[in-house]
């Protein structure tokens, strides 16, 4: 069995009467890219902070790399851990390079790593400028560089792409991929599903402090059994033949809207519908298949 780098067992956090995190179980394996999805206030950041030992849990247990998150033993783990908090504003009067060097010293990382890291996140030109003059995106890049100090085995990234422009986002995921291929375990949060669904191995959906669903994108889709949709343009007369076949199928239904023919079908009817379409033999002029997106899954679970 694969090595579990993050183990969260029945973790709960109350703030007075507010249940920020409520009985969460989670395990992330070494080398995985894991996404934590949820609306603002779903409890993602709170869960992150507990996993990093920044705030105590009300109850439950968390182990990171085998060590409990509160105690001297965790100091060893922290050296191999990268964290990018949500919306971090650094120190106005230090330059980007100085800021990075400060965190490198705290982590016990060779200062020679700083300049190449700034290069990697595209901040070389601004390295000597004070952070005061940085844009939101530049601060986010600096934060990311900071998280990468010392080639961490484990990366915690809280809303890592906020403030980045589309190019910055692509760049970010390119670096993430490199980190992954170097063997890092990565856990990131987002409320933008479409952005991360193709980039994570597994994900968990959080709502009001609870994990609603957990698994691969594919397994979540299957679990939800959302219907697929085929949109077709057919040669005249072909729709009558298609209707005849579709009507015999379990879990499939055909509707017409002028020239456009739509077949709604359950997941198990997908192959039979495709075979029926193949039987039309060239009388299809256009075909679109709509798979439910993770967005649909997400809305299905927590909407």
């Amino acid at each position, binding site marked *: 069995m694969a090595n579990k780098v993050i183990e969260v067992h029945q973790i709960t956090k109350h703030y007075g009467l507010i249940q920020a995190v409520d009985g969460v179980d989670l395990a992330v394996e070494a080398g995985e890219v894991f996404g934590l999805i949820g609306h603002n206030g779903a409890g993602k950041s709170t869960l992150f*902070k507990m996993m*990093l030992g*920044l705030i105590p849990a009300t109850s439950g247990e968390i182990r990171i790399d085998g060590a409990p998150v*509160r*105690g*001297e033993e965790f*100091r*060893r783990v*922290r*050296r191999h*851990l990268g*964290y990018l*908090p*949500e*919306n*971090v*504003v*650094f*120190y*106005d*009067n*230090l330059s980007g390079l*100085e800021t990075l060097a*400060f*965190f490198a*010293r*705290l*982590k*016990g990382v060779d200062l020679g790593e700083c300049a190449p890291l700034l290069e990697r996140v595209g901040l070389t030109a601004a390295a000597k400028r004070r952070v005061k003059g940085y844009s939101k995106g530049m601060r986010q890049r600096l*934060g990311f560089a*900071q998280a990468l100090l010392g080639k961490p085995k484990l990366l*915690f990234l809280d809303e890592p792409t906020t403030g980045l422009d589309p190019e910055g986002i692509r760049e970010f995921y390119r670096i993430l991929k490199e980190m992954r291929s170097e063997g890092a375990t990565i856990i990131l949060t987002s409320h933008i599903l479409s952005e991360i669904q193709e980039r994570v191995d597994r994900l968990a959906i959080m709502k009001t402090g609870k994990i609603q669903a957990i698994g691969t994108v594919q397994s979540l889709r299957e679990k939800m059994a959302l219907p697929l949709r085929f949109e077709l343009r057919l040669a005249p007369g072909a729709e009558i033949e298609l209707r005849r076949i579709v009507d015999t199928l379990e879990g499939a239904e055909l509707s017409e809207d002028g020239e456009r023919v739509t077949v709604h079908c359950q997941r198990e009817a997908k192959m039979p519908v495709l075979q029926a379409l193949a039987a039309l033999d060239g009388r299809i002029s256009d075909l679109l298949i709509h798979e439910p997106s993770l967005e649909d899954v997400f809305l299905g679970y927590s909407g």
Partner: protein
Amino acid sequence: MTFAIEPKQIGIIAAKEFRERIRNRWVLAVTTVFTAFALVIAYFGSAQQGAVGFSSIEVTIASLVSLVIYLIPLIALILGFDAIVGERERGSLDLLLSMPITRLELLLGKFLGLSAALACSTVMGFGLVGLLLGFKLPPSAWYHYAGFMLSSVLLGMAFLSLAVMVSVFAADRTRASGGAIALWFFFVLVYDLILLGALVVSGGAVATDAFPYLLLLNPADVFRILNIFGLEEVRTLYGLTTVFPERLANPGLLGAVMLAWITLPLAVANWKFRQ
């Protein structure tokens, strides 16, 4: 759950704090303020007596003490009130705490870095004026002046410690600044008035026994006693001997009380910070 202390981590935090105060010209500004005030006081301190120009080191120190007792606590509180709460609002506190560092190390690093900035300004600002005055003075004057500078640094550290404590307790920077100003009012303005009130109301009854100890409960008063008691010329001027027994006026004891004022608020801050 025990935590070892790694001095290196404390040093890294302290160095960063110090560097920031140099960078934003805080040290320069406060040094300039201290130099200017000390110069003015040294040359015009006895203007009421109709004399302008430097008169005596004892009168100069006494005047400087009256100034510093207001100024240094205020500067220290302003310097330290956002030490922790500022990082929290900036979002960098979580990041710092995710590093291999304990809360105590962070707190001590902050405190020592800010102390270094304040000490630097104090020693440079008053030291510069000390050097200007120094040529014609006997060694005993040097001793008193050095004592004045050292006790000023300790006074600053005591109020810095209080400020760091406020900054751990406060929910946001606005409240922290309010708390810091309230502490200044209490220790620098109100406390002595309360003691005076108690003296008057009790018809002087508290004076003999409780009064000297009550003075030790205020770092600003400890600072005053430390500096005034050593100076023959001004001791009678202040009438201190009537309220403060000679046996308590030992610099070693007063220094220890000052150190307690530096340590205790930090200890409370650490206790709260670990919650």
